[in-house]
């Protein structure tokens, strides 16, 4: 069966995050995924998930190819891959501008990756 393998920072990485650093598609019948080890330390941990574990913030399953093209919009938390609140894939409408707006929405320091800037 085809599965999605995602790499997140290993525990030995200082300041490791839940951000997804890399991803691959593989067939579990022919390939056994492994962590990425560099210089003797686990640099990236690999987690395998079936395609139906890729979700947006509302829990809707999304296309794995979409995730591959937008991995910096997703996080891996407690076994699930989902777009974090306040990310570009958080497409919920703010019908009423009241106090329920998440604070992270307004925080500039939520931008983790400056690579594209």
């Amino acid at each position, binding site marked *: 069966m*085809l599965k999605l*393998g995602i790499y997140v920072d290993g525990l030995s990485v200082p300041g490791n995050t839940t951000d997804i*650093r*890399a*991803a*691959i*598609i*593989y*067939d579990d019948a*022919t*390939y056994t*995924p*492994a962590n*990425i080890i*560099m210089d003797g330390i686990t640099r*990236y941990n690999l987690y395998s998930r079936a*395609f139906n574990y890729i979700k947006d913030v509302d829990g809707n399953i999304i*296309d*794995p*190819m979409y995730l*591959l*093209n937008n*991995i910096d919009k997703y996080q891996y938390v407690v076994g699930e891959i989902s777009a974090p609140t306040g990310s570009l894939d958080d497409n919920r409408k703010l019908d009423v501008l009241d106090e329920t707006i998440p604070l992270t929405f307004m925080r500039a320091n939520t931008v983790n*990756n400056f*690579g*594209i800037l």
Partner: protein
Amino acid sequence: MLIKTDLSMMDLTGSNEAFKRIAIPFRIYKTSQVISLGEPAYTDSVVVEIMSGDTLVSYTSFTKGVADETAIARAKYAGTQVTPTPVEFTATLINSLTVTGYTSSEFTVYVTYQALYHDTVNMVDDIVGPSYSPGLMSSVLNQLSYLNNILPPIPDITSDDINSIQVLAEDITGESNDNYIQDEIHLQVNTLANRFVVRPANGSFYKKDLVVKLNDVTLVENVGYKVVGINLGKTRVTTSNDSVYDYIVILAEVASGAAVSITYRAFGGMVCPAAMNQTRTLLKNIIEYIKLGNFITVDTLKDHPLIIYILDRLNLIENMLNISAPITYLYSSSAVDSWVNIAHVAPDGITGLVDSKGVGHFRVRTEKYFAEIKLNYDLTSTGKVLSSHTVSSWATTIDQDKISHISTRVCPKFRILWNSDSVNSGLVLQMSVTRSVAKDIYVEIQNYGGAFSTWTMLPSTGVVLTPVTTTTTLPDDSVWNSAESTSLQSNVVVASGKGYAIFVGNIPTHLLDPHTYTYDITGDPEDNTTPIMTKHTGLPVASLITGSDVLIGEVDALVFKVYDRYAGTMISKVSDNLSIAGETVKASAMYFDQDMCSVEGTLTKTEGGYNLWVGATTGTHSVVNERFDLRQIDILFKGAINHA
């Protein structure tokens, strides 16, 4: 009876016996009933009689119709044409009578008269035949009318009646005991619900014998019932002094379920042995006629001259265009190669020789795959015997079909079998179509070869093709056996034309760099005993290869797809360098020259499957900016269309 020599069609004398109509019966059932004779008759010759006991007696309660001026004019003209002495025609002709003697009961009158025209039906048997004449036409029409009115097909009876229908002979005497039907039950009568018409199951009936009963009590005519629908045709021909009717109307109050029974004498003749024989003869003639081949049936279709002509023309066109109709095979596809025979090169019919070099041109279509390929062979080659060249192709790709590309793509391969010690035994072309998910698929192949193609497609059996494991039969019926050293098989060529994705993911190139090379830092700048840069294989990643799809020797290039996060574009680059060593292929491509960025891949086939490593060498600016992601690697095979 007419004498043979007197065949004149018109009698101007009014006394020729051959033109005499004798005692033609007409049924009188109403006051002032007009009798149409249907032809001109001499007024003075008309005699009307009725039956009294066993003899005809004169009847006078009638008036003659108006003169038929048209017929008179024709007779006068005919008289002027008589040679040598013209005849002056002075008689009067009429077409009808009006019988005025009806009071309350029906009766039959018999009319005798001299007709103007000849009646051909009374001719002697051995006469050669008459010319067409009004009299002949009149006779034909009368016969048709007779057939139509007297011998109708099965009338409008219900299906239940069909089962009980009897084969009754036509009875014009009104006396046949065989036609006497007793107590025929009609339960459907319900006058309260407007169901009051009874149609006897055996058709028309004589009125005189009709007895209608309701619950075994006889009904009185015109009180409990009445007969309607006099059948004039049948009444006219009967010799009985009675009328023939078709329907009975029940006048009494009859509730649903009450038993109305009728006893009657049927006229019969609806289905009689003669009619059955006639039908049988007709069917026999039709069948004989069809057998002659003038009519097209499923059996005779292939022998019909028109079909043969069309097929010949199609063959001619196919030969002229050097193509033939596609053949569809049913093939059991899986991740493992399964070789089946699809075509052969047979020895030449005259020389018995097989050309050691040749070209084939085929169109292959299955599921989401279509390709037009050329297969060239050279049995004398010391290198590869078989090569392929894809002219055009259409197949699934990651771009179009996303992940489903991996489970729906097919990988067709071809090879040739022959015996090296007997090349003239012919060649066999084999095909294998692998697919990650096992499935029986239809593979349509069209021999699209030109004038030099010697390939002949094998016919499709409609069932799954049988894989050839160790032995098969060559075109001249000799045996190819893989155990024999002289039974050879060519190299295998792959006809996967649109690229075959072997890696799909998203790995930033800066993450790959440390797996691809490391710098050796030496304290002594003069020391060059070790390379400054040490190369590594790269990061092992999953390869999305099905079964044994990738033949390392047939790999022509790798196509790397790298995403530029800065520009937001996808860079697709065919490998600049490719090296094949045994079962390992290495390829790399420089995809961003400005910053000296390259990406590379190494694919190795092992007994257990395939191993894939990916690597990158990224320029410093791009590393700092984390600019590039490796997204995809495709394989292109030799002979495929090079795409970027």
